C-alpha cells in the first residue's frame, strides 16, 4: 500500500529551496500480515483445552482384605451387553429375571432412581449397591456411560466386577452377546 503524495507539489514561494522532510511513518502492512499468519498457525496447532478426566478407584487386589457381608437384596447388578444394551436385576444371580434396558434418560437412569428409592424405603434408608459387570461384547463407551449414570443419580456405592458364566449365558439368551 503506497502512500499517496498529498503535499500538492506546487511552486515554492519565495524561491527558497526547502529540504523535503522525510516521513517517519513505516509501512507496517507486511509486518501485520506476517504477525497474523503466525497467530493463525499457533491458534490452530495449540491445544488450549486441557485434557479432562474422571477419577477411578478400584479395590486393592494385592492383599487380602476383610469383606463386608452385604445383603443381596440391596444390590443391583448391571450387565453390559452388545448393541448398546444392558440388563439389570436386583438380588442374587439367577433368582430374579433380569430386565433388558438401554442407556439414557428413560432406560438405565430411570431404573436406577426407581430401584434406589425402593431399596432405601425397604431397608430403612440404607443405600443401594450397584455392581457393574461389563461383558466382552460391550464397548468402552458403555462402561463410561454406566459410570456416568451412577454419577448423575448420585449412587456412590458401586463397583466394577468380572462377569460370570451364568450371566453371560443369560445375555446370550436375550440376544445381547453377539
Amino acid at each position, binding site marked *: *500500500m503506497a*502512500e*499517496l503524495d*498529498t503535499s500538492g507539489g506546487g511552486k515554492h514561494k519565495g524561491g527558497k529551496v526547502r529540504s523535503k522532510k522525510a516521513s517517519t*511513518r513505516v*509501512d*507496517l*502492512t507486511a*509486518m*501485520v500480515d506476517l*504477525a*497474523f499468519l*503466525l*497467530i493463525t498457525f*499457533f*491458534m490452530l*496447532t*495449540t*491445544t*488450549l483445552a*486441557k*485434557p*479432562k*478426566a*474422571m*477419577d*477411578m*478407584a*478400584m*479395590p*486393592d*487386589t*494385592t492383599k487380602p482384605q476383610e469383606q463386608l457381608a452385604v445383603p443381596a437384596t440391596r444390590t443391583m447388578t448391571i450387565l*453390559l451387553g452388545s448393541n448398546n444394551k444392558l440388563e439389570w436385576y436386583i438380588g442374587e444371580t439367577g433368582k430374579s429375571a433380569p430386565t433388558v434396558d438401554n442407556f439414557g*434418560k428413560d432406560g438405565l*437412569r430411570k431404573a436406577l432412581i426407581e430401584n434406589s428409592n425402593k431399596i432405601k424405603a425397604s431397608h430403612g434408608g440404607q443405600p443401594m449397591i450397584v455392581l457393574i459387570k*461389563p*461383558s*466382552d*461384547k*460391550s*464397548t*468402552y*463407551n*458403555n*462402561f*463410561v*456411560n454406566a*459410570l*456416568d449414570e451412577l*454419577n*448423575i443419580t448420585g449412587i456412590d456405592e458401586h463397583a*466394577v466386577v468380572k462377569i460370570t458364566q451364568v450371566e453371560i449365558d443369560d445375555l446370550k439368551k436375550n440376544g445381547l452377546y453377539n
Partner: protein
Amino acid sequence: MPRVKVQRKSTATDMTAMCDVAFLLLTFFILTSKFKTPDPVPIDIPGYTKTVVLPEDNIATLTIGSGKVFFGVDQNLRKTTLEEVGKLYNITFTPAEINTFIGLPNVGVPIHSLKDYLNMDSEKRKAIQLPGVPTDSVSNELFNWIKQARLADAALNKPLRITIKGDAKQEYPTVGRVIDILQKQGANKFSLITALKAAPK
C-alpha cells in the same frame, strides 16, 4: 478564477495499533502453546458429566484404540524407563537410540522390535502401522513399562498419575485387561480421559 482543488486524502491507515495487538496475541499463543501430540490410532473419547482437569506433567497415558495399547510417559522419565525395561529383557540401547526414544510420545511396538523401530529413519517410522504394546501376561510387557515408569517417578518423589485414553468404540476386553494389569501392581487409582458432557436437568 482559481479552481477549487479537491483535497486528496491519504489511503494509508495507521497500522501501529493493529500491529501491537497482533504481536501481543502472537506472543500469547507462542508462550501458551503446547503442540498436539498426534494419537497413534484414531481416538474418540467418551463423554462424562463430571470431570477434573488433569495436571500437565507427571502423568503416564495408556492410549487404547483398535484393540491396541500404546504407552506414553513424561519426557523426563522416558530415559530411565527405557533403560530399566531394557534391562529386564536383556537389551541395551545406544545413546542415539535413547535420544530417539525421548523424542517419541508413545511406545507402540513389542520390546524386541523396539531397537529396529528406533533405528528407522523418521519418515519410515511414521509410515508403518504399529502393533501396540503386548498386553498378554506371558511377556508382561505393558506391566513392566508401567511398573518401571512408576519406579522412575517414585525416585523423584511424586506419585505418577496413570490415565487411560480409550476410544469410545473400543470393545471392553482390552480396557479390562489394562485395568487388570494396573490392579496387579497396586495402581488402583487412575483417571479415564473423557470429554465434558452437559449435565442433564
